[in-house]
């Protein structure tokens, strides 16, 4: 009886898991179908694998857009780390007066709808001639991710035992040795989690990319959205494009699930 109940619950779990995963599964399957098969009703599970979708992606220059996505994600993540590590270190290990105000300021900028500060940025970028420029987009992404990165990073720095830091200071370690030799090795997993999250947010970002880029600096998400303009059947090629664009983040997230949750929950979840 107990065994029966147990396997019933397990089956229910798997049923829900399958329902949740189904759209992603279907995207994977459709990516390898011909357009006729991808749009067939009733849907087919048995089909001849077809790679024409991927071929058409390359023909439409998806590689360039992926490269743009990669550039903006990596560049913005590096900027964020460069700014957030010292800030988080100071806020956590050498706290100053008014630290609450600084923290509040950072989190409040995250509540500000991006669109509100975007109009002047758009105008400035336009007059500087960097409206369709991947470096400019990276800067904006860095600004978008910085507040959350400071918060997450601080929660990781907070776990560094103060005794170790104090011992190093008494031994006469200067600030640089203290940061690089003592503190950074301890918080390295945390920094990796923050970097991963910033990368994911930038890679997946659609709104700013649509507004601040047009062709040269266009990233993968707006490219995907522009895919549906043609007539005729497009489900196969759309699925292929979505799959290729989403895969890097999917793989990274699958591998680093635990760090991801901890980072996103700002260290509150152990």
């Amino acid at each position: 009886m107990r065994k029966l109940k147990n396997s019933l619950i397990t089956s229910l779990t798997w049923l829900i898991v399958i329902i949740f995963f189904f759209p992603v599964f279907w995207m994977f399957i459709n990516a390898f179908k011909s357009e006729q098969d991808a749009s067939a009703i009733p849907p087919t599970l048995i089909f001849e694998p077809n790679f024409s979708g991927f071929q058409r992606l390359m023909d439409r220059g998806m590689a360039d857009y992926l490269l743009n996505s990669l550039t903006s994600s990596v560049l913005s993540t590096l900027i964020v780390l460069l700014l957030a590590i010292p800030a988080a270190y100071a806020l956590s290990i050498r706290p100053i007066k008014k630290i609450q105000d600084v923290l509040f300021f950072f989190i409040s900028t995250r509540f500000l709808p991006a669109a509100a500060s975007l109009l002047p940025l758009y105008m400035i970028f336009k007059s500087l001639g960097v409206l369709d420029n991947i470096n400019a987009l990276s800067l904006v992404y860095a600004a978008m991710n910085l507040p959350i990165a400071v918060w997450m990073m601080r929660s990781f720095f907070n776990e560094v035992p103060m005794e170790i830091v104090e011992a190093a200071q008494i031994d006469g370690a200067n600030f640089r040795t203290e940061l690089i030799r003592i503190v950074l090795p301890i918080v390295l997993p945390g920094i990796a989690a923050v970097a991963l999250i910033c990368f994911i947010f930038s890679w997946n970002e659609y709104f700013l990319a649509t507004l601040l880029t047009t062709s040269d600096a266009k990233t993968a998400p707006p490219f995907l959205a522009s895919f549906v303009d043609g007539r005729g059947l497009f489900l196969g090629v759309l699925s292929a494009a979505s799959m290729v664009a989403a895969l890097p983040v999917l793989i990274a997230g699958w591998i680093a699930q635990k760090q991801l949750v901890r980072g996103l929950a700002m260290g509150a979840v152990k």
Partner: protein
Amino acid sequence: MTTQTTAKTSVVKVETQVKKARLSRALILPALIFSIVLTQIPFLVTIYFSTLEWNLLKPTEIKFTWFDNYVAVFEKGDLLPATFATIGITSLAVVFSVVLGLFLAVLLDRKFRGQAVARTLLITPFLLMPAAASLIWKHSMFDSNVGILSWLTEALGGTPIQWTTDLPFLVVVIMLTWQYTPFMMLILLAGLQSQTPEVLEAAAVDGASAWKTFRWITLPHLRQYVEIAVLLGTIMLLQVFDPIAIITKGTGGTKTLSYLLYERAFVGLNVGEAAAYGVVTVLLTIVVATVALRSLFKVFIEGGQR
């Protein structure tokens, strides 16, 4: 003599403390300046723009008009519906995904074959690029001709539904719930797994039923995790844009504040009015966020005390 030395050491102490504070400030400053330059100053400029009469078609005729743009914004009357749309979509998606996420977290907290695989598959919707997810849902699931859901309703003998045109609000809520449930599940699962097994064993020894243990031990323990989940979900969902821009284009009660602002600012040509929309949207978002979070946590606290 002794007083002199203490005075001396305290001077040294004060000096090092000043030095330390200076170092701390120097470390925080770059991040602070970067943030201010790219977010705060543009917002101040937005406020300035909002007082100008500035049409992109007449770039030479820019003049100061006080609050005319705000009057125009309020007379259009699309702020209130957008506020309701934002509240509706955010709160429904947060509530559904937290409830579903809790249910799934409890299911996944058991030991069963393939548990790790199940968890990995389940978090995928949250990792999937939102633009890709919106496109797949729109064209592969909800489409009235080739969508799986239409085929399913017909196969089960129902009449096919024109999802995206007839039920856009529901479509957005379904898609967002699908996207955020895994995230909530992960946070709540971490909460479940942080319970001390001894307490649960003690409850079992005392003869407490599974439901009673869950209600009186697990749920109170989970409260702080639910709060984190709700807080983060609200922050992210208040500004949600992708599914609305891609699936519904703001039709059928899905025109949220962020989409309205996008429409006004980048489709129209009136810079001053767009800026006024920006300022009002920020204020409304802050009000909605504060009120929503406050009242939600009130429910939790009262529920916890009963």
